């Protein structure tokens, strides 16, 4: 597996895009900057809805908070594009690194959690909640998992340089 990943890395780092990013030394740090800005938007807006479902700021209704998630979605787009930039520019730092795949696992689980939220009827149950109304246990569970999983994505992201192979 590791050998396959290393082979993929060698190929990816020989692509024109990879060479372009490396040759222009501002692109990588630029991607890092936007990765953090996008992260703050994504996690920040997601956690307001999570906290509301968990009982913080209970006198807010869900609908407007849910609508503000659009900013979080923009944040996700930013982190996805810039994150792809890192992997293309320096694949050998990520693809053969177990920590990177832990981050991807947590990211996938966070996505799954969102999928459960929308398909299990939980969203429909909280959508109508007005000021002061308590969210059902299922929604609280989704909110808790969301907070936990995004914190985990952040943790593994920061650990990339420390565990496994280091930069």
């Amino acid at each position: 597996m590791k050998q396959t990943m290393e082979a993929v890395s060698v190929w990816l780092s020989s692509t024109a895009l990879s060479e372009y990013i490396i040759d222009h030394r501002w692109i990588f740090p630029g991607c890092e900057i936007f990765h953090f800005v996008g992260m703050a938007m994504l996690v920040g807006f997601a956690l307001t809805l999570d906290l509301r479902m968990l009982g913080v700021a209970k006198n807010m209704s869900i609908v407007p908070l849910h609508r503000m998630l659009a900013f979080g979605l923009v944040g996700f787009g930013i982190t996805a594009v810039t994150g792809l930039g890192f992997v293309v520019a320096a694949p050998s730092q990520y693809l053969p690194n177990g920590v990177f795949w832990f981050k991807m696992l947590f990211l996938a689980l966070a996505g799954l959690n969102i999928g459960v939220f929308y398909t299990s009827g939980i969203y429909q149950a909280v959508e109508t909640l007005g000021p002061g109304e308590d969210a059902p246990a299922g929604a609280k569970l989704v909110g808790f998992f969301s907070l936990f999983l995004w914190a985990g994505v952040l943790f593994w992201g920061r650990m990339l340089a420390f565990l496994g192979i280091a930069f």
Partner: protein
Amino acid sequence: MELVNAIEQSAVGALVRESLWVYPTLLTLHGVGLALLVGISCAVDVRILGFASDVPLRPMARFLPVMYLGFWLNALSGLGLLCAEASKMLRDPVFFVKMACILAGTGAIVRLNTLVFRPQDARLDRDTFHGSARALALASLAAWTLAIVTGRLTAYGFFR
């Protein structure tokens, strides 16, 4: 520069630098705190600037303690990180630009707090804001963005 060396050689500086776990843990906390502080501040700011104007602002005040938790998380973790790398950071002009941005951003949110989030004030229930509230919201968005930009750049030492 003697002070810089003294900080770096201090017990805290040495612990953060030499322990396998302390430095990465502080970095992670610094990222989590950033998300809490900037994320919630950003939500309040865009609301004041006129987006999602049907979101009631008054109950959003309950999120503010989480935002301040993020601030203190980052102040403390940042102090620890600074001790470990005092000579790198305190010689980097970019680091001081970051500090100035944080000062400006903090000033803006504290001022917004007293200007907008006064519980007895009926203006809290308004849909739109003008003048200084909008200016402060814009200032805090700009300050946090620039703080993130300069924070990332300190890792590279382009201007050192």
